[in-house]
């Protein structure tokens, strides 16, 4: 069959586009090279929905950042994505930085971002008593929020799939071609697809995909960001996102109160060569902690429970690359660097407009279902609700993850909804994200993955590919049986 649209890339941008297109009578396929959606840049992310004042109005990013911010509000409700609008404080430690705060304020006000205020030290410390005494001023932006970026990505994909989009994982695009009547052929190792339109949402590799399409006029440079997650012990250290004063290159290293109530610090911003290099480093950790201790002196490396690194897709153009190309039917949603997560729902809307302009007929479906069922989260329920839930389904009474109190029912639900790796289950349920980092639940989740999919545990992987977890025994065979 010929699809109307093939989206290349199952990150938050590709998934948001897929979900937006699923409102219409269209045949859409989303192709993701990894085992599950969101396993690239989207999962290793600071998880910030920016306030809307950061990016310059003259860029593509400026309007999309603020538009995206506003779109997330209803989305998180409909899809059940973990989100808290905690607000942000951009702080100045040097007198000359106050000027930058004033610029951001003016930029935000011009754009219509509500609630922006410049705070004096006294007000800052009243709100955030653990913040450094060296802070001279802060820009308060109540519209900023924190989100679970992996949850956002996979629930966007799930919503799209429920509304008819086909989501195909383990599909690395190897070749792209279009014929005379502008039908595109998209070749992967497993399958070849044909489509009228191809949307390039391939993130770090969107330059490569554009090249395959014959319109490779930009490059994507990976910019690494290391993040460090702290123990729950320090929960409450700050209750708002704390930003240092931004520089032209980066928004700096932040202190983030995550959706789940822990504290995360990061990211670094290091330009590197390899698009696979997600290693954390001693230098990175050092840089992160030295930097955030200037903002919040009580932060300690000894509280780290997990660390990771993600690669931002930094385009040579310095801005988002969104729109049609010289090749008919090939649309870019490329170079989506920060604030990409924030902007993604707005980017998706813009891509739909572009597709319409390019000739894709759009007819709204009247059976579009904007919401997803919100599975019960045992840990968040009242005792009474827990009792009732367990009475209805005893698998809600069997514990899988001791740190986050995740039950068997939640894990099997995640697997039935498409998570088929340890990381996939972890991102969907939080099993394995707590203090013991899977020491307790890894085996239990493996057993459930094996049982639900009818595979031996030796075929269960951490994140697809060659990421096997256990090997079978290879005992010499003997007929000897003792009893």
């Amino acid at each position, binding site marked *: 069959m010929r699809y109307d649209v093939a989206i290349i890339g199952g990150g938050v941008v590709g998934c948001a586009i897929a979900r937006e297109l699923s409102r219409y009578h269209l045949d859409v396929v989303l192709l993701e090279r990894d085992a599950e959606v969101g396993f690239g840049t989207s999962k290793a992310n600071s998880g910030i929905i920016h306030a809307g004042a950061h990016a310059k109005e003259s860029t593509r990013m400026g309007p999309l950042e603020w538009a995206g911010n506003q779109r997330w509000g209803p989305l998180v409700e409909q899809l059940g994505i973990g989100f808290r609008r905690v607000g942000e404080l951009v702080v100045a430690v040097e007198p000359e930085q106050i000027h930058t705060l004033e610029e951001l304020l003016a930029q935000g006000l011009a754009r219509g971002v509500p609630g922006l205020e410049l705070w004096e030290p006294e007000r800052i410390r009243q709100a955030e008593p653990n913040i450094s005494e060296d802070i001279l001023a802060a820009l308060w932006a109540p519209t900023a929020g924190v989100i679970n970026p992996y949850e956002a990505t996979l629930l966007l994909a799930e919503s799209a799939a429920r509304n008819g989009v086909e989501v195909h994982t383990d599909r690395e695009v190897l070749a792209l071609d279009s014929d005379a009547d502008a039908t595109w052929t998209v070749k992967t190792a497993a399958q070849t697809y044909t489509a009228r339109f191809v949307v390039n949402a391939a993130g770090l590799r969107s330059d490569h995909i554009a090249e395959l399409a014959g319109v490779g006029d930009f490059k994507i440079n990976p910019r690494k960001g290391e993040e460090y997650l702290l123990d729950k012990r320090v929960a409450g250290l700050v209750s708002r996102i704390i930003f240092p004063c931004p520089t032209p290159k980066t928004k700096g290293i932040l202190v983030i109160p995550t959706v789940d109530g822990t504290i995360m610090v990061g990211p670094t911003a290091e330009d590197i060569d390899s698009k696979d290099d997600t290693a954390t480093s001693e230098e990175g950790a050092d840089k992160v902690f030295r930097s955030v201790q200037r903002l919040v002196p009580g932060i300690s490396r000894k509280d*780290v429970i997990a660390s990771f690194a993600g690669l931002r897709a930094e385009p040579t153009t310095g801005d988002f690359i969104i729109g049609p190309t010289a090749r008919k039917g090939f649309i870019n949603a490329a170079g989506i660097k920060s604030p990409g997560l924030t902007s993604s729902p707005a980017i998706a809307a813009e891509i739909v407009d572009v597709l319409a302009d390019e000739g894709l007929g759009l007819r709204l479906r009247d059976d579009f279902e904007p919401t997803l069922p919100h599975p019960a989260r045992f840990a968040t329920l009242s*005792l009474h609700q827990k*009792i009732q839930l367990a009475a209805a389904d005893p698998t809600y009474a069997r514990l899988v993850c001791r*740190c986050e109190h995740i039950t068997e029912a939640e894990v099997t639900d995640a697997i039935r909804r498409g998570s088929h790796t340890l990381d996939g289950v972890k991102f969907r349920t939080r099993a394995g994200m707590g203090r013991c980092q899977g*020491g307790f639940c890894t085996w239990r989740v493996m057993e459930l993955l094996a049982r639900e999919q009818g595979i031996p545990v030796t075929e269960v992987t951490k994140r*697809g590919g060659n*990421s096997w977890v256990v090997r079978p025994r290879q005992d010499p065979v003997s007929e000897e049986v003792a009893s």
Partner: protein
Amino acid sequence: MTMTTQPRHLASYYDVLVVGGGPAGLAAALGARETGAERVLVVDRELEAGGILLQCIHSGFGLRYFREEITGPEYAERSLEQALESHVDVLSDAFVFDVTEDRTVAIMSPTVGVATTTAASVVLAMGARERTRGAIAIPGTRPAGVLTAGLAQKLVNLHGYLPGRRVAILGSGDIGLIMARRLTLEGIDVVGVFELMPHANGLSRNIVQCLDDFDIPLHLSTTVVDIVGHDRVEKVTVAPVDAHLTPQLDRSWDVACDTLLLSVGLIPENELSRQLGVRMDPLTNGPVVTSEMETSVPGVFAAGNVAHINDLADWVSEEALIAGRAAGRRATGQRVPADNIRVLPGRNVASVVPHSISTDRVHTLYLRVKEPMLEDSLIRLGDVHERKVRALVPAEMASIKAAPRLLEDFHGDALRIDAVPAQEVTT
């Protein structure tokens, strides 16, 4: 185990409810029965009680508590038998997710659903968890194949799967050493054990029998500085460290392996205790406890690795008996004189448990030292008593008894516990 009887219903009240069915929980339940508690329930989260001992198939357990050297599974089964023979109820595959100050205990289990019960005394015996990669912040990528030694032990010994083919081990704690031998016996190539400190963290018996016997190299003052691999571990980079434990990256080398086991220490598991608001000791990472092992919340006791990391299951059982007996006494309205001496860790002492004692009876104080003392040493109780020991190392727990006749002068005071070289005192 064949004799386990899984209770189908949860009673609305127990004299003593024990959270955790490892050696601590089972001994605490036994202790509670000894002092007259009638209704004693152990709640264990695994399919069968026994705790981590069930996967510790090696010998070296029981010399003190059972007067016989046995393996972990034997120790577990005998502890369970003792508890069941004294009519303790054991609820398996069940998890306590909340305890309140009035000792209402919330339990989840497929057999009883989600239910609450109350107890006159609660004993916290959740054991410990292993420190993870995150806790020691090893740089590098995040491939499959980095796991704690205890998880590997569970996979191999209980479920019959192998964690990899070529394994490097970080940390020379006993679990890591034991796993080096265990994996070697299973035909897996163990390429080396890397220890940050200049001394091994495990017992010398395990160095000899788990490493030397199989020519597995032990690299002291060496640590893993990078983990490499996209999907699965492909290699680790290791480097020697200087006197300040800073890695010397110019002297690093690569070790090809598909698995990295971590044996870098245990942390008392006190999520439930913290939720309850029990006062904690940052030195032990466990609750502050009286000589009766009672926490700061009246009627809530702590036993075993929850209170502090023990080196032997035997110590755990002994101490849990104390906690269980006290829990039983409280449930049956018996009293003992309250503590009147505060115990303080002194020279080269990392931590001491319990945190207070009383002048009227004999107490055993359990302690760990900070720095190894490889010569004749003294454990001193204030300036009134000392015990000579041959050597003290951080990996091993030491104990000293405190009797009423020594303690009288400390009534209402603090008693400092020091570990000092014997030579220093005699000269």
